[in-house]
C-alpha cells in the first residue's frame, strides 16, 4: 500500500516537473517548485514507512519549513529583481 502511494507521489512529481520545464511564466515555475517540494515531503514520509524505519520524519519536517521559506524568498526576490535591477532592495517589506 505504501508502494502504491509512493508511486502516485512519484507520478505527481513527474507531472510537476513537466510543468516546471514548460511553464510559460515564472510564476508557473514557482508554483511547480512549491508543489514539487510538498511532494518531496510526502515522498520522504511515505518512503520512511516503506522501508520500515519511520524515525526519519525530521527531514520531511525540515523540508516543509524550508520549502515555504524558499518560496517566499523566490517571490520576494523575483518581485524586486524584476522591478528595477539597480534599485532592487529586498528588504523593504515593512516600511514601504
Amino acid at each position, binding site marked *: *500500500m*505504501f508502494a*502504491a*502511494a509512493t*508511486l*502516485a*507521489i512519484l*507520478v*505527481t*512529481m*513527474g*507531472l*510537476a516537473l*513537466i*510543468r516546471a520545464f514548460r511553464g*510559460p*511564466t515564472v*510564476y*508557473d515555475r*514557482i*508554483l*511547480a517548485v*512549491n*508543489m514539487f517540494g*510538498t*511532494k518531496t*515531503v*510526502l515522498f520522504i*514520509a*511515505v518512503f520512511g*514507512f516503506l522501508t520500515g524505519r*519511520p*524515525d526519519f*520524519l*525530521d527531514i*520531511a*519536517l525540515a523540508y*516543509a*519549513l524550508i*520549502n*515555504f521559506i524558499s*518560496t*517566499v524568498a523566490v*517571490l520576494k526576490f*523575483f*518581485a524586486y529583481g*524584476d522591478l528595477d535591477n539597480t534599485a532592487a532592495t529586498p528588504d523593504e517589506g515593512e516600511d514601504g
Partner: protein
Amino acid sequence: MTMIVDVLSWVCLLAGGFLGISGGIGMLRFPDFFTRLHAAGVTDTLCAGLILLGLMMQAGWGLVAVKLFFIILFLSFTSPVAAHALARAALHGGLKPLLHKAEEDPSKP
C-alpha cells in the same frame, strides 16, 4: 479494530495518491496560471493531508505520529500562505501576459 484502522489508512493513502495524480494532471492541463493554482492547491493540502493522515494511522500513537501531525500542521499553514503570496505576486507583479490571459479566461469570474 486494527483491521478497521488499516483499511481506513489505506483508503486515506489511496485517496491521497489519487488526488495527487489528478492535481498533477490538472497542473499540466489547465490553461493559465491562476487555474493551475487551484490544481496545485488540491495536491498541497488535501492530498498531503490525507497521505499523512494515513501514515499517522499506520504509525499509531508515539513520536512518529506527533511528528506527522506537525508536518500536517506546517503544511496546512504554509502551503495556503505560499499560494496566497504567489497569487498576489502574480497579480501585483505587473505580469502583463498573465493578467491578460486571466481576463480572457472564461472560467475565471
